């Protein structure tokens, strides 16, 4: 009997090996790559063809990504295509989740994958595999670091990252006034590519003499976790008695910091600003805890992403530098090299909206 047991294990193992070694490569699907117009010509993306796709957010626990998906669905309806399947890992820390979804997408033979990369290079093998299978891979919100080298066709950037630093510096100046004062940054995670780029950019912007009275005393990380961010915000206040402002370039961090200040009755003393979601921030903006913050529209970002992806997947747009296209209600865009990466292409969606008590309720 023991003998049988071992035998069984061996046979099971062998069967798997043989199954794996035999059989040919599964053919990749993908949209027909028709003759696309070259760079310079403006293409108006038009519907008609169907495109199956997967729309992958960093995580499903953040409402901004739902807004992005709403935009993507809107675009799909305009184009008469089936809306992309919205699948994401439960938390932004779940790298394997995105890899699994990307890998499954290959198996499912979809035409396109739109991803907001929640890690760094970890996604690249899977992305490459997807492209090899003929799938159009477009990143949005957060790019795939190696860009075209890892199968990415295009990155749809929400804003020009260079602009972010300046917007944040301006808000700080606005809130603290000419006399300036101490402020600290509460970021997401230390390896969050977007946030790091923005912080770096802000530090560069601060070199400008007009911000000379603004003193950045510390940068801490709340891991995009409400509780951690809350504790970090309070720790900042304790550590720097003269602190006047917490700048949080993350929607989770800014809300948690504002909540912490409100809970501890510190709103008059320490202000909160950064990038926030209006629906999260209404209360704090109106009660003065976070009088001013900024964000772009995630709905538009999703909308644009879908349009661009559809254009590439259906062959209407070629993912090359200089290609121009018109994306529905958002107008014209030109594909350009991404200055933040070695071999990546991008389009930049557009400006920030700065929210104050005047417009926050509309947001």
């Amino acid at each position, binding site marked *: 009997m023991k003998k049988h047991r071992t035998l069984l294990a061996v046979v099971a193992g062998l069967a798997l090996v043989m199954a794996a070694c035999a059989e040919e490569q599964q053919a990749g699907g993908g949209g027909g790559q028709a003759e696309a117009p070259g760079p310079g010509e403006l293409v108006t993306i038009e519907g008609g063809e169907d495109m199956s796709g997967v729309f992958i957010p960093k995580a*499903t626990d953040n*409402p901004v990504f*739902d807004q992005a998906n709403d935009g993507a669905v809107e675009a799909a309806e305009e184009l008469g295509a089936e809306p992309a399947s919205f699948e994401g890992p*439960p938390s932004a820390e779940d790298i394997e989740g995105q890899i699994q979804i990307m890998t499954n997408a290959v198996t499912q033979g979809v035409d396109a994958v739109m991803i907001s990369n929640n890690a760094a290079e970890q996604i690249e093998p899977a992305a490459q595999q997807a492209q090899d299978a003929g799938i159009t891979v477009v990143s949005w919100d957060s790019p795939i670091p190696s860009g075209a080298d890892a199968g990415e066709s295009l990155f749809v950037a929400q804003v020009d990252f260079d602009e972010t630093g300046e917007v944040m510096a301006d808000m700080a100046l606005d809130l603290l006034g000419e006399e300036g004062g101490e402020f600290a940054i509460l970021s997401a995670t230390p390896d969050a590519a977007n946030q790091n780029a923005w912080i770096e950019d802000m530090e560069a912007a601060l070199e400008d003499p007009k911000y000379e009275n603004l003193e950045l005393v510390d940068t801490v990380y709340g891991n995009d976790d*409400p509780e951690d961010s809350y*504790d970090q915000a309070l720790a900042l206040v*304790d550590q720097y008695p003269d602190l006047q402002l917490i700048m949080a370039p993350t929607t989770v961090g800014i809300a948690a910091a504002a*909540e912490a200040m409100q809970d501890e009755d510190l709103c008059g003393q320490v202000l909160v600003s950064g990038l926030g979601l209006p629906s*999260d921030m209404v*209360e704090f903006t109106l009660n003065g805890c976070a009088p001013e913050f900024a964000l772009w529209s995630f709905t538009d970002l999703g909308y644009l992403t879908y349009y661009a992806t559809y254009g590439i997947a259906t062959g209407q747009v070629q993912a090359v530098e200089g290609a121009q296209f018109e994306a529905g209600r958002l107008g014209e865009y030109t594909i350009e090299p991404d200055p933040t990466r070695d071999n990546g292409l991008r389009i930049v969606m557009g400006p920030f909206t700065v929210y104050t008590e005047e417009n926050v309720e509309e947001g």
Partner: protein
Amino acid sequence: MSRIGPGSSERVGGSRRRRLGLQPERMRELSLLAIIVVAVLAFSLVFENALSGRFFNRVTTSVAITAVLAAGQTVVIITRNIDLSVGSIVGVTAYLTGEYLGDHPDAGLFLAIGVAVLIGGALGLVNGALVAYGRVPAIIVTLGTLAIYRTWLIEHANSQNITADTLPQWLDELPRASVLSFGEFDIRLTFAVAVLVVVVLQIALGRLRWGRWLYAVGSNPDAARQAGLPAQPLTLVAFVVSGALAGLAGFMFLERFGTITVFAGSGLELASVAAAVVGGVSVLGGSGTVFGAMLGAVLIALLDQSLLRTPQVSEFWRDAILGALILAGVAADFLVGKRLRRRWAESRRSLSLGATSERGAVTDA
């Protein structure tokens, strides 16, 4: 010769021994208090305001949630079980209570707490039923429900968070409410509630018949059965209590953070087990106090908050230190236990000079 005969009045578990016998729990609590004091003093050398009222408030507010969870966890561990699902129960109750308050802004504080406790208790009931009547080990059940409850929440929430603006105004003000103030030192309402929970449970476990039965069931399940104790209902009750307290903690979580994501409270299960074990609750069941667990929770919160404010040490040391603390707690527990066993063996020898050492001798080896 014989020490228990009518002719001899020598006490077997003599008064000296009694002090030693009951002492471990008290000793544990005292030494924890001492460690806490030393830690506060040590941290006060490292960063300025460790002795300030503000820091006191930070620690006490952040300990409130873990202390309540640790109290519930203690009840479960006393019965020789463990509840790893509390983190998810906190998340579910915080979310659902937030949702309820969003829909019923007029519901008062007590109704809201009632909802949270009820939901938590129901989830605890599921755990308890599977453990007590399904006879699945608690570690398996609660590892499973940890995942299941969280999954249910994620499905239910459909990636919508509970945000502060949907919640009634009074909830916003709750975290700042103080019961008592001594200058800068506030006793916040949440902390007061946590202390109240601990005191009530401590008394209940010490003075209620069912409380003592919980210890009895954990101490010797076979004997409990033979004594006709309702072991299964007791186990069920322990899990319901733990679930209900996790529900209360969920409410506290909601009022403290305002924003509730579907991952709210994850990781708290480990913190609660850690607090209980560090606080001297024996994982073998039958011994430990809620008060000790509370001290464990205080020590952990103190470390958490201090590490955040100590630039020299990264806050990433937190978990490593926590792991070491648990190990130290368990090891201390066992060393005490071993000493007790040895003393037992000795007393048996002194009673009967070599009699019945057959078993005792082996366990020492």
